[in-house]
């Protein structure tokens, strides 16, 4: 039941929620990630060695002394000498200089070319976007190494120039990333609002667009830095680097010449390249985590079984009347938080009789959906749930295994979600999404299930069932999709239907039709319905009984008639009075001259 918990992701996740730490800045968040610390330390060491090279060795990296060739480690040569007698340690630290400068050239050139072009193309679109995207695609289609070889054969060996050209070759990658980020943020309403506020374009880009682009670009730069070191070493290994300049790739080349006599010479440049490139990649990943762009970290799954509360009631308790479809006693739902568990449902109890429609009403955060999901056993993994009893027709759901719950869901308990579109799988046809559960739960043959699905589609008021059966979800409207989901929910003749804000995403005219449909199906099959909603109009339309929730507690349960005519709780009264429905209309504006 429990997944292994990665302390790193758990830590970053925990802090991501805490606003204080979020404000604390990137560096603070970065040092909480162990791999980032290791990578940073290594990169600092390399940079320090490169900068302080003259202090770290008195040897020249290029001075050869053929008499001292292949000298072992010893005083004066901490790592020995190579085939022509050059000091390996000096070559290594001066080589770091070459590598870092080369990589820096690539980063700067790709940034200077790619960032402004990406910003302009993404923000203004139009012709510049078309042309620059075309050029970027063309460049990306060229093999970089060929371009570099051509350039170097034309102008001769020159590491800095090669890296300069490579900066251009890799710039389209930066361009595309920046452009994509800009296009995404440009659709945000706050950018529209800034435009309406009269911000000039440069100011708008600086204040609202650039900050969003920075994070992905920084991550990409750390990766490009690593790639540049590898490409540069490759060129130098091929003998295309600048002459008279120590470099890691050049060292590899030299070591390769002496591979049979002194294989140890390969070790140092290889280690330097591998460690530095790995550090760049790890830093990139850590930056992504620290900047909040990490893929959703696994949440701790911690399902407290009922036994902890020590108050499990035996299933067939006598105080549950025969016609009660669902009985919930003292339901508690909580989520782990930074400061201990946070309880969102505090001991909710309610009962629904066969053929009754119970409305569970409340504002956002009142715990109404959490209550409904508890019955379905579909709370998010992080949640822990306990109840004295959740009894469904004599069976205690809290004691059921996952498999037994699965047999119940869809078969005896139907569910209608709030967002019809996101609850249909876009890659399957509507028909197969209806047929599969029926074959699974009812054991129907493919042909029978199809006939039944078509009959259901017709029943929920779809005029052309064959077409909808063969359609993909994106080919039907939102109202139609909700009808399909209702057809699916009632396909196995459930005894209890749980509808979570089933009409909130729909237009009022469609809402009225969907409510009619739920009412008819409910009456026809004598289903019990648990309807979660925030809309008192919907409650008045369809519910027999209403439970009002506030902050995880039920404050009032009453028949719909009583609730509207004589609300007992102050909160219920406040909610009903807040309704603008039926309030007097605003007076017409006085004719000119009368007021202003």
């Amino acid at each position, binding site marked *: 039941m429990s997944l292994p918990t990665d302390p790193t992701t758990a830590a970053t996740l925990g802090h991501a929620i805490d*606003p204080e730490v979020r404000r604390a800045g990137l560096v603070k968040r970065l040092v909480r990630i162990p791999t980032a610390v290791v990578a940073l330390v290594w990169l600092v060491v390399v940079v320090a060695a490169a900068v302080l090279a003259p202090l770290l060795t008195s040897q020249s990296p290029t001075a050869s002394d053929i008499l001292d060739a292949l000298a072992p480690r010893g005083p004066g040569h901490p790592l020995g000498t190579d085939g022509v007698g050059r000091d390996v340690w000096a070559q290594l630290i001066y080589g770091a200089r070459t590598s870092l400068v080369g990589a820096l050239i690539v980063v700067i050139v790709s940034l200077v070319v790619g960032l402004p072009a990406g910003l302009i193309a993404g923000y203004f679109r139009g012709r510049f976007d078309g042309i620059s995207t075309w050029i970027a695609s063309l460049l990306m289609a060229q093999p970089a190494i060929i371009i570099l070889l051509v350039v170097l054969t034309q102008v001769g060996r020159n590491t800095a120039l090669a890296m300069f050209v490579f900066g251009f070759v890799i710039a389209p990658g930066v361009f595309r990333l920046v452009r994509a980020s800009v296009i995404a943020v440009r659709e*945000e*309403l*706050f950018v*529209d*609002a*800034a*435009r*309406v*506020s*009269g*911000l*000039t*374009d440069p*100011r708008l880009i600086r*204040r*609202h667009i650039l*900050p*969003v682009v920075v994070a992905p670009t920084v991550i990409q730069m750390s990766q490009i830095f690593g790639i540049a070191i590898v490409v540069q070493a490759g060129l130098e290994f091929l003998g295309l680097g600048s002459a008279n300049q120590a470099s890691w790739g050049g060292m590899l080349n030299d070591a390769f010449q002496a591979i049979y006599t002194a294989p140890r010479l390969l070790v140092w440049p290889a280690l330097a390249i591998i460690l530095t490139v790995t550090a760049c990649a790890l830093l990139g990943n850590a930056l992504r985590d620290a900047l909040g762009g990490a893929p959703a970290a696994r949440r701790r799954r911690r399902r407290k079984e009922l036994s902890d509360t020590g108050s499990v009631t035996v299933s067939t308790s006598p105080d549950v009347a025969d016609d009660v479809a669902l009985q919930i006693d003292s339901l508690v739902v909580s989520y782990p938080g930074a400061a201990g568990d946070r309880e969102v449902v505090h001991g909710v109890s309610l009962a629904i009789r066969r053929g009754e429609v119970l409305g569970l009403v409340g*504002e*956002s955060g009142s715990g109404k959906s959490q209550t409904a999901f508890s019955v379905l056993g579909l709370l998010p993994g992080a949640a822990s749930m306990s109840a004295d009893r959740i009894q469904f027709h004599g069976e205690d759901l809290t004691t059921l295994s996952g498999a037994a719950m699965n047999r119940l869901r869809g078969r005896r308990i139907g569910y209608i979600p709030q967002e019809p579109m996101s609850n249909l799988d876009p890659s399957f046809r509507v028909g197969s999404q209806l047929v599969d559960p029926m074959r699974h739960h009812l054991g129907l043959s493919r042909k029978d299930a199809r006939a039944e699905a078509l009959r259901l589609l017709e029943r929920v008021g779809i005029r052309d069932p064959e077409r909808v059966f063969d359609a993909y979800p994106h080919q039907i409207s*939102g109202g139609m999709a909700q009808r399909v989901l209702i057809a699916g929910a009632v396909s196995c003749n459930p005894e209890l239907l749980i509808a979570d804000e089933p009409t909130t995403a729909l*237009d*009022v*005219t469609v*809402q*009225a039709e969907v*409510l*009619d449909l739920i009412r008819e199906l409910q009456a026809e099959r004598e289903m019990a319905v648990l309807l979660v909603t*925030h*809309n*008192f*109009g*919907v*409650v*008045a*339309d369809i519910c027999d009984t209403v439970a009002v929730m506030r902050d995880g507690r039920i404050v009032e349960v009453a028949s*719909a*008639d009583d609730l*509207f005519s004589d609300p007992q709780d102050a909160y219920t009264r*406040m*909610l*009903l009075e*807040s*309704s*603008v*429905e*039926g*309030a007097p*209309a*605003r*007076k*017409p*504006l006085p*004719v*000119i*001259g009368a*007021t*202003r």
Partner: protein
Amino acid sequence: MTETPLLEVDDLVVEYDVRGFRRSPVRVLHGIALDVRRGETLGLVGESGSGKSTLGRAVLGLAPVTEGEIRFEGRAISGLGKRERRALSSDIQVVFQDPYTSLNPAMTVGDILAEPLAVGGVAKGEARQRVKDLLDAVHLPTDAAQRLPREFSGGQRQRVAIARALCREPKLIVCDEPVSALDLSTQARVLDLFVEIQERTGVAYLFVSHDLAVVRHIAHRVAVMYRGEIVELGDGDTVTSTPEHPYTQKLLLASPVPDPDAQATRRARRLEAASSGAGGAR
């Protein structure tokens, strides 16, 4: 009697290009005509896809005007250059539907409110005082200025968005479903805030909503949109209680009333109307 309306829209057509070779553009608005007077709220009601939000965006200069004209204080503002459009920002402002995405999550509330002031050339010290006054005007605590949008509830964020719209003391605010993402009790309070601000400052609203009851509460006059056209335009009370056009009638009968008996009556009338085929559009 012949006062020039604050905002006039004449035969407005908006089309969007469709991607793809030789695809004809989609016409979202088909010749819309309306006007908004100074200090007035014009409610714009319709279902999704009716073009009501597009109309609001066209007034704000965020949607392309294909044909027709939009005039503000008698001056044509459709097809203005960027510089002239920016100058209008002190007169026309906006409050969007979603208070979660309409505020930049990386900026403090104080910075969000100070930004339009800086555009208007208000000095820093004065801007700080103005931000304080604005927060006060929308009934938010003064220390809100140092906090980030995510530290506020939906209703509070919408108050921030309203404060931002008020920064430059505009003459017209386009409100695009400003209360539909809010909880019921918050909705009523935010609507009251809109009315209070209008009565104090004389600002006009073009108030877009899908909810007849909300529009009835705030609008002096109401226009009903259906498939890119205005099907009914008139006095708020009349349009929202005894509409003439079949589509508005259908819309009204489909809106549930929070009273079981009244709703049962309304439902019966709706089903009757639907079966007699007078439902207008489907």
